[in-house]
């Protein structure tokens, strides 16, 4: 018999004591949620208090393709690199952002801008890996995505919902085990393609409830007998997936956007990202640990300004609505928010009125739990061509996200007897922006 050597209380996949305690201290059993939706339910003191006692949560807005920092967080109006858009004042005097984000500008007091990002990777694929995992892509080695880490460390054991959900314009709708790397498929992301509910959430209408229960009981009995002598990582993954599918079926209303009030649908917008951000709110309210909302596309080598006009108009309204809702409900106290891309875009404007890939001096935005509010960290020069203060790497950012969520990035996994630091040891957290 081959010993199961990856879990079950063995040493090899155990968390270190510090991380376990940190995770356990913030975890809470997932309470039943008012699936009727809407923010008004959070006004009830009992509900708000319940949410505040909950586990930490994480929201990422992934602006795929490389959003221009000059058209968002670090405008250079009036310079040869600035382009045609002007900058506007925000709710924090002295902090100005692009005029393309008027609603977000009113919420700057909840946010922090990190303007000195230098990640040194201009390739989409490698930039994606770098910003999702905090480590450069290396052949033969995969590290978990941030979402999988959060799912692993923050999701309560009895939370019936997936710990990492990706609300994306496209995708297969399956669980992406690769995101979790060596953490195991349980912590992979589940994609809601076009923000829609997973397929097959409804039971076969031809199946009688009594028959279904009997069948399930038989399945469990047979699985348990099999596992007594032939349990492996594969059988556990299968069982976990099957159990989760069942739990999702029992909670399918979590994914039902029709339960959201019409006024919120209007506030977020009926376009794709509007619906997706409203779904994100619903998922967070339901207790999902990590939600990533992807918006495509920002890879504007051609007509950068026209396309950013269009894309950021789609982004500004629902993002501001979501951030405000998280704040008003109190959820922002335990939810960390990050807005990022693979890289930024060149200060130079090319002959197609475009901007190309640029990782030397760009920006991200953060908000919520663990972060200071209403500040800017780092700076670029007057043309945006280099970082002149507070330069940070992708690894530094990753350390910072983990610290904001209450996880020690210098702690170790133990993988087949080898200690691997959770975050790239070459990075360190940006203490200046942590609360």
């Amino acid at each position, binding site marked *: 018999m081959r010993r199961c050597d990856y879990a079950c209380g063995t040493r090899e996949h155990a968390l270190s004591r510090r991380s376990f305690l940190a995770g356990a201290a913030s975890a809470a059993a997932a309470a039943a949620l008012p699936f009727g939706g809407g923010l008004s339910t959070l006004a009830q003191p009992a509900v708000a208090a319940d949410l505040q006692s909950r586990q930490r949560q994480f929201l990422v807005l992934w602006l795929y393709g490389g959003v221009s920092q000059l058209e968002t967080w670090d405008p250079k109006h009036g310079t040869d690199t600035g382009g*045609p858009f*002007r900058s506007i004042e925000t709710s924090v005097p002295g902090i100005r952002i692009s005029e393309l984000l008027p609603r977000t500008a009113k919420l700057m007091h909840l946010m922090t801008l990190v303007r000195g990002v230098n990640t040194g990777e201009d390739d989409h694929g490698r930039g994606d890996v770098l910003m999702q995992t905090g480590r450069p892509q290396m052949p033969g080695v995969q590290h978990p995505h941030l979402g999988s880490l959060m799912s692993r460390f923050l999701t309560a054991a009895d939370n019936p919902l997936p710990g990492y959900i990706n609300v994306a314009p496209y995708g297969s709708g399956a669980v992406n085990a690769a995101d979790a790397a060596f953490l195991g498929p349980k912590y992979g992301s589940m994609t809601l393609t076009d923000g829609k509910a997973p397929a097959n959430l409804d039971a076969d209408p031809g199946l009688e409830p009594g028959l279904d229960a009997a069948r399930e009981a038989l399945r469990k009995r047979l699985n348990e007998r099999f596992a007594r002598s032939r349990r492996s990582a594969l059988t556990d993954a299968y069982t976990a997936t099957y159990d989760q599918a069942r739990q999702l079926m029992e909670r399918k209303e979590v994914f039902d956007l029709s339960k959201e009030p019409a006024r919120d649908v209007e506030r977020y917008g009926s376009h794709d990202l509007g619906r997706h951000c409203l779904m994100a709110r619903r998922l967070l309210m339901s207790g999902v640990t990590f939600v990533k909302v992807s918006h495509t596309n920002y890879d504007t080598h*051609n007509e950068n300004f026209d396309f950013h006009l269009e894309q950021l108009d789609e982004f500004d309204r629902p993002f501001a609505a979501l951030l405000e809702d998280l704040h008003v409900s109190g959820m922002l106290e335990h939810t960390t928010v990050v807005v990022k891309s693979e890289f930024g875009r060149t200060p130079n404007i*090319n002959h197609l009125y*475009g901007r190309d890939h640029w990782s030397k001096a760009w920006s991200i935005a953060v908000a919520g739990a663990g972060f200071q509010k209403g500040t800017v960290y780092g700076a670029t020069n007057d043309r945006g061509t280099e970082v002149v203060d507070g330069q940070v790497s992708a690894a530094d950012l990753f350390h910072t996200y983990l610290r904001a969520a209450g996880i020690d990035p210098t702690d170790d996994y133990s993988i087949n007897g080898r200690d691997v630091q959770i975050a790239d040891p070459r990075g360190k957290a940006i203490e200046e922006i942590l609360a």
Partner: protein
Amino acid sequence: MTDPAAFKTLSAHKHGAQLTNCRFDPAGERVYAGGQDFAVVRLDLATGEMTSLVAHDSWPWAYAFSPFEPLLATGGYDGKLVWWPIDESKPVPIRVLEAHDGWIRSIALSPDATRLASVGNDGFARLWSVRDGSLLREWRAHESHVYSVAFHPNGHDLVTGDLKATLRHWEAPTGKLVREIDAAKKLHIYDNSFRADYGGVRDLAFSADGSKLAAAGLVENSNAFAGVNEPGVVVLDWAEPGSSPLLHRANDALKGTAWNVRFHPDGYILALSGGQGGGGVLFWRPGEERPFHTAKLPNSARGMDLHIPSNKIATAHIDSHIRIHEIPAKTA
């Protein structure tokens, strides 16, 4: 008769910033171009002197000259309409209007030079009095960004074109919609990969007798965010636009966008295409899909104008130059 095949570049004049669009003054003595440094750049063709006119807070983009007085109106991406007295050595604005919420994309002067039409990203068309700058009329012209506007030579009709290549024909005095024209829809694409609208009617031009309308833009797009597309000009019969609109295209591998289009009295149509390797000015005969001549340019241009009396063409380039070209007369 002119000979486009003999197209030649006469001069090049460097500004301190990349240039966007350009226009000749009515006399053909000066060219005005928009700079990415927010200046309206005036080039005196006789002396080569360049003067920067500064009033916009973003890229100047659109130009309209009065044929009866020394007056220029410019529209910018700051939403401002600026009126300039162009007979002065260093013109200072005589009027600045906050005309649109967002970019002004195009302006056009009525043939009698009494009204100025402006359109932009806020979806509105606005008519202004040239005499005192007062707003005469405004209406919501399109649901998406309005890219272009042109008066019919009769001065009564106005046409606008938007990002989705929808053309709308209006009664200028009332703002009443006469008809919607879909014949130029080839100039729009929704890119499903990038989830964005692309294309649009980048320029409009009526033939001198008003019987034809040309709409310039792009076609055959395979990658919106990389600009992999060809320039295209759709020519419509104004009386019956749905009857066989003709698409004029480039030859071979010229990739780019048709930024500007003009009708020449010698019967051909010309358009500027930007693109890799410089792009060029394309010349088509009526009824022919492919150009009979393409005049290659040394650097990618984003704006063009034709001065008919002198047969000169001005182009505004990304290398910060205004270039002046000539279509010589045919030699025997």
